[in-house]
């Protein structure tokens, strides 16, 4: 187990290096001048431009720039963005809200998705099954910005149950319910379907027949024996999704005006703020890889046939 974790952590190094270099190269290959629009209506003075380019190593060839950047990064310095604010500070603030949003979305996925999937699975072919199958298809086929705007209008504006936008970085959990639900909606549908399919399949398994033949209550045969096996792929899905959600949700964040990581990257790309974009994406890549590692370890706990030796 310990060996496995070390091996996986070592494997992350080339992935992180590769991913950051590609991002780095792409961001700096973008057309446009980072100093454009920095000095109001007038073009910037040549002195300012020279100083700016010097400060951000923009005159070096790309590999050298990358090397210098990386050297700072491994020391924990994520650099300063073009506004002179350390990226680390910005990110810390924005990561809190993105993380909270992701956690709440995952909670929705796990609770609503699994519950709906189980109800549909054990009552296969009945009303509740059809309801879940049709409603999840509905959610899957509508783009998230339509669902988001629609729910924002309905719950936020028309009925006023939830705040329509959440601009504050210290937003209450209550105000994040609506955005989290929108963010998780697509995955709720996927989780429900995945749970249903797996449950239906496992209910036919021999060991479930054994469980019934042992005289177990139906609740125990389904709730313990069948569900445990059916949830293995669901947990994998939710885990991978969590890694993705921690990367911020540009669409949902914009709909609800949340100042999260997604919006930060968006702003960084628009203002050609290379350092901000690369540092943020690098952090996201690392977080994603770590979450994936956690999921794989959890997988071994759920399914004893998988060994991490």
């Amino acid at each position, binding site marked *: 187990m310990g060996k496995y974790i070390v091996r996986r952590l070592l494997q992350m190094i080339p992935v992180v290096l590769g991913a950051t270099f590609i991002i780095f190269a792409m961001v700096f290959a973008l057309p446009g001048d980072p100093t454009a629009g920095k000095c109001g209506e007038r073009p910037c003075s040549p002195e300012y431009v020279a100083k700016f380019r010097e400060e951000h190593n923009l005159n070096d060839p790309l590999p050298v720039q990358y090397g210098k950047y990386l050297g700072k990064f491994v020391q924990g310095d994520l650099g300063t963005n073009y506004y002179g604010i350390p990226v680390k500070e910005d990110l810390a603030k924005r990561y809190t809200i993105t993380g909270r949003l992701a956690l709440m979305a995952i909670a929705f996925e796990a609770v609503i998705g699994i519950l709906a999937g189980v109800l549909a699975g054990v009552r296969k072919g009945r009303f509740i099954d059809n309801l879940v199958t049709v409603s999840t298809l509905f959610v899957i086929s509508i783009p998230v910005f339509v669902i988001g705007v629609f729910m924002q209008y309905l719950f936020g504006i028309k009925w006023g149950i939830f705040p329509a936008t959440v601009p504050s970085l210290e937003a209450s959990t209550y105000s994040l319910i609506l955005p989290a639900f929108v963010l998780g909606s697509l995955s709720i549908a996927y989780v429900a379907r995945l749970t249903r399919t797996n449950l239906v399949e496992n209910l036919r*398994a*021999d*060991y479930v*027949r*054994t*469980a*019934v*033949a*042992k*005289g*177990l*209550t139906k609740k*125990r045969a389904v709730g313990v*024996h069948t569900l*445990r*096996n059916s949830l*293995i792929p669901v947990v994998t899905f939710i885990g991978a999704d969590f890694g993705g959600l921690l990367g911020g949700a540009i669409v949902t964040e914009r709909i609800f005006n949340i100042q999260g990581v997604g919006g930060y990257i968006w702003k960084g790309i628009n203002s050609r703020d290379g350092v901000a974009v690369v540092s943020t994406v690098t952090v996201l890549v690392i977080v994603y890889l770590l979450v994936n590692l956690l999921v794989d370890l959890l997988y071994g706990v*759920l*399914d*004893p*046939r998988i060994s991490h030796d």
Partner: protein
Amino acid sequence: MTTTTKSAAPASSYKPDADGRLLEVDDLHVEFHTPDGIARAINGVSFDLHEGETLAILGESGSGKSVTAQAIMGILDMPPAVIPSGSIRYCGQDLLTMPEEQRRKVRGPEISMIFQDALSSLNPTFPVGWQIGEMFRQHRGMNKSDAYAQAVRLMERVAIPAAKERVKSYPHQFSGGMRQRIMIAMAIALDPAVLIADEPTTALDVTVQAQIMALLAELQEERKMGLILITHDLGVVADVADRAAVMYAGRIVARAGIEDLYAQPAHPYTRGLLESIPRLDQKGQTLAAIGGLPPNLTRIPQGCAFNPRCRMAQDICRTELPALRQVGQQQSACHFAEEVLNG
């Protein structure tokens, strides 16, 4: 059994009748309602089982032997399965009309079952000791650690080496024979009166087969269980069974004491099955197999269901269903039972 578990077990409210009869299946019918029509899997099966007796139910795949077992256990998927008529009485009480909650409490403590493929029949995600102990937790309200202790005792009883160390291992960490021993340990956990073994050795090596059969025979002797042994393999039951019933297309076509059945079969199908066992003293000769395939259960042939495959079939076999009748020491459902018996 240790004395502690005896006292922990509540006295069973089920008592066999004066003859020691445990199970009485009477004119059982089971149908499967499929999109292709109604498959008549069981068409009037009757038999009984006494304490300490081993009944072998023989037949090819699709003859209805497993469905009979599952109907007794009450683990048929209904639908598609339907039981239109018949009764299954356990110690005088009809299992088929019993409320489900009462019937659930029969499964395990009274009647239990061993399945063919122990790997798929055990839950892959729980330790074997946990799965054995679950019997005590569900039916006896025992706590987890006591249930584990019981699991160790049972694993030792079925001769699993280092039971204490292996009680928390998972099914995939055991060999096929050991897994089947675990299934057996689970099935006998609550000292059932009836044990149904559905092809218990089919998935195993020949040497392991013999060990498992010996273990079953030993446990049955020790606990005076009624044992129903379901198999297509006539070789494995010869030493163990007292009586045998041969099934074909959902009916019992022959019934006899095990020696009579082997020495002098009274039904052409039984004879065919016996002739298809390879024998060393007939090496070099073509192995006689029964030609053709078992019938499609949605379209069982008229008359005797075996007639399209029977070498002795006459016109009467194609029109009239032969009843199960006494022929000498045995019972046979063949119009020409006497000829078969004496031929």
